[in-house]
């Protein structure tokens, strides 16, 4: 099971079925090196498989957001089910992070924004 994918400044997290504290810790420690060695310009949280999330998931997203945003990067969430949307909404995270329907929508944004000129 692939947990993330990195290339050319774009990091995608494939989030697990249940995003709790245990899962968040594994995701963080598993991707620490990428943040240390690269400049992540686009960070994408893919919720396609995720049916459960609690506030530890919010902590993961906002924590990663801070690291990427401090260096001018952008953060997105995609494939958000109704269930997960409710949690993200409640947390107020959409004030700082953009939701897109699919990863393709983000690529459009990347092209428009000049990342892939």
């Amino acid at each position, binding site marked *: 099971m692939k947990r993330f994918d990195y290339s050319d400044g774009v990091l995608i997290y494939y989030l697990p079925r249940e995003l*709790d*504290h245990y899962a*968040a810790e594994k995701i963080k420690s598993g991707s620490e090196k990428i943040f240390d060695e690269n400049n992540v310009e686009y960070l994408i949280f893919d919720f396609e498989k995720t049916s*459960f999330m*609690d*506030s*530890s998931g*919010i*902590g993961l997203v906002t924590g990663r957001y801070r690291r990427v945003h401090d260096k001018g990067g952008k953060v997105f969430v995609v494939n958000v089910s109704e269930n997960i949307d409710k949690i993200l909404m409640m*947390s107020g995270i959409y004030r700082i992070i953009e939701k897109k329907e699919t990863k393709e929508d983000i690529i459009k944004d990347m092209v428009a924004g000049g990342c892939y000129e």
Partner: protein
Amino acid sequence: MNNTNEMTVRFSGNAQNESFARMVIAAFITGTNPTLEEVSDVKTAVSEAVTNSIIHGYRKKSGQVTVYAKVTGRKIYIEIIDFGDGISDVKKAMEPMFTTGPEEERSGMGFSFMEAFMDKIEVESKVGEGTTVKMWKEIGTAGRQFE
């Protein structure tokens, strides 16, 4: 079925058991005939409290977490109990976004989520002795989808 049913589960306070606690509570409340959304709400609230016992109550130490649940008709009552560090200022701890674990990327929204997903919560805590979180929820009282 307007009778009462009770259960108590006690488990080691390690992070893998967060999902175990969620499955236990979901299994226990099936008798109240909840919607999928109500099950998800209760799971989230229990997940928050159990996670707090593990990471804030016991930190790196070992300890046991206890979940007690009682169902009477469609009324659910749950207690999550630890004998960990306890909370010095419960009122402050319950404020949205307040966390003593920012470096661990905690959001400080655990108590807010418990309050949002349950009808009512109460927190009892004593420094050095531990914490008990009590939660109430009545199934079928808000936005019911199936009858």
